[in-house]
């Protein structure tokens, strides 16, 4: 048992798998000598050497394309995409090549690779370095997508992603990088596609992901503290595969559903959750389903503006309380 930051958990998860499998390699911009611009790969160069930990030019198409070519010929590459916004310059490799090649070749080509990337806002980086793009990846058949919310899950889901025989996008929430928690020693592997009940409750189900999980839990505590409704917070952890049962189970119990999304509203993952519940459990719902998301605008650099955009514990609590009061 040792205290670990979410940031250090990234390196620990990768290191655990590099120890285990000599075919696991890491590549990306400034990942080796500098230990990553977010220090999420610190120490890996010293530990595993320049052959396995490689600095690259600023060439995202080549970084991710090389990871694909390496994966289809026997390696298990972990490619770092410094900021998830940069998927924009390599999206063809991700959405059209990596996601589709196993299918197009009827299973001939295996692509055991991971793309790990710093995702989301809260650090005042502005519109081009703050996007939460988990829904971009979820929309592409052939990609698995995880977004851990704790240091423990970061280690365990990174490990599972590296061991998985299919391509996995690992979204690291920038706003959680400095978070600390005690993490057990020894090997940690968490299954992909298993949600976690972050907080039990009875009056409403709140489905959250990554950076929004602590905020949803804080909102729940706040409401509980002043005798408000009892919220059950579900940490999805993984968008693909998606733990639909965990959501349905909770909604059957609470009869109300809210989603808390960092992504801008339109076509966010929360919409998918709502549409699944509306098809499979609509009779369980006792009132309107409300999505609490970043408004459909880019994120501003200014702290006052950015804080007004991303869902906060206050806004989550207020929205849920208002909704339940006016519709119960």
């Amino acid at each position, binding site marked *: 048992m040792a205290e670990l930051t979410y940031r250090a958990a990234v390196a620990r998860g990768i290191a655990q798998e590099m120890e285990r499998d000599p075919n696991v390699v890491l590549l990306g911009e400034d990942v080796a000598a500098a230990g990553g611009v977010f220090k999420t790969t610190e120490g890996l160069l010293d530990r595993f050497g320049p052959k396995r930990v490689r600095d690259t030019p600023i060439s995202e*198409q*080549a970084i991710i394309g090389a990871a694909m*070519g390496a994966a289809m*010929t026997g390696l298990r590459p972990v490619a770092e995409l410094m900021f998830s916004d940069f998927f924009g310059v390599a999206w063809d490799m991700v959405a059209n090549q990596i996601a589709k090649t196993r299918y197009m070749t009827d*299973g001939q080509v295996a692509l055991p690779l991971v793309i790990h990337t710093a995702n989301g806002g809260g650090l005042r980086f502005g519109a081009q370095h703050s996007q939460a793009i988990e829904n971009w990846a979820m929309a592409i058949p052939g990609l698995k997508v995880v977004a851990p919310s704790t240091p423990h899950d970061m280690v365990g889901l990174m490990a599972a992603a590296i061991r998985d025989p299919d391509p996995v996008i690992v979204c690291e929430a920038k706003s959680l990088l400095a978070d600390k928690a005690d993490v057990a020693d020894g090997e940690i592997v968490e299954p992909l*596609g298993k949600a976690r009940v972050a907080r039990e409750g009875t009056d409403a189900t709140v489905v959250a992901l990554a950076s929004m999980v602590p905020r949803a839990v804080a909102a729940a505590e706040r409401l509980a503290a002043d005798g408000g409704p009892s919220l059950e917070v579900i940490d999805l952890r993984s968008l693909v595969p998606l733990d639909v049962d965990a959501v349905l189970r909770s909604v059957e119990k609470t009869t109300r559903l809210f989603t808390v999304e960092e992504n801008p509203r339109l076509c966010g993952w929360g919409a998918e959750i709502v549409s699944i519940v509306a098809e499979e459990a609509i009779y369980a719902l006792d009132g309107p389903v409300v999505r609490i998301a970043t408004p459909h605008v880019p994120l501003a650099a200014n702290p006052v503006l950015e804080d007004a955009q991303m869902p906060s514990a206050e806004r989550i609590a207020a929205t849920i309380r208002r909704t339940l009061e006016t519709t119960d």
Partner: protein
Amino acid sequence: MTTIPVVPPPAPDGAATLDREVGLRLYRTMLECRMFEQRTHELFLAGLVRGTTHLGLGQEAVAAGFAGAMRTDDWTFCTYRGHNHTLARGVPMTPVLLELVGKQGALMGGKGGSMHLTSVEHGAMGSYAIVGAHLPIAVGAAWSAQYRGTEQVAVCFFGDGTTNIGAFHEALNMAAVWKAPVVFVCENNQYMEYTPIRSVTAVERPAADRASAYGLEPLVVDGNDVEAVYEMANLVIDRARRGDGPSLVEALTYRQGGHSRADPGKYRPDEEVAAWLARDPIPTYRQRLLDAGMVGAELEAIETEVKALVAEAERVAREAPDPEPETATTQLWADGGSAWRS
């Protein structure tokens, strides 16, 4: 280093100079590509081939020359214009044709189609249909060979138009920096889809004139002379295998037909088409083999054999049933399925 002819160079003449076994093998490979594609085109006109096709008629010498110089465990990465490169690696005609006609037994179960022919067991690592994407992917394969010390080489084929897209630049630079065992082969067939490459490229030789930007030497070869291609291939593949890094080769050739099944290629000047048809790599090489003392009967025997292979593939293709619709949702994941919920 050859330099680019403003008009096509004269048809290669003089007797073939290669070892006779090699020469016959190269001839046979070109013939397999040619006869397969000619029949494919007829079957498209007859409505049997359903999806789109991009034929490499006229470019067979590039595929045959390079494949002939590759080790069986080397890797080929090519484009939607990939029939030649796929067959040249020894992939049997029948599953390929089944893929094109869309019947059971197809190379990729009908999921990929003509633009994505792949046979990992033959080192045909895929036909990529978005321009430029496979160059970085080939670099990754080369990196993996380097990492594992297997001395395998990745050979990556693409067209002249591909030299103007970003992925080309990123792949060439990274390959050079990493000294990756990859050979980039630009098949300069003079056109993008319908647009002449000269009209949209800042240099005369789309690939060769870019080599120095990656610290590489400019290499140009007559892509319609299978022996010249074969020799160039041995040179650059050995270099890569030795650990001396990547090469970029520009092979001058010509697309005898249109860009894809639907295109008659009317935008090309008649004299240009005529000049290049006069240097069709197959009849010219046949003549050179004869000049080198091969007996016509030997060549005819090969021609009969290849014709029979095509006929057999067609027979199977005509009789094969359609695929089962349920297979449309298989093989997205390694578990064979496509479930998105756990």
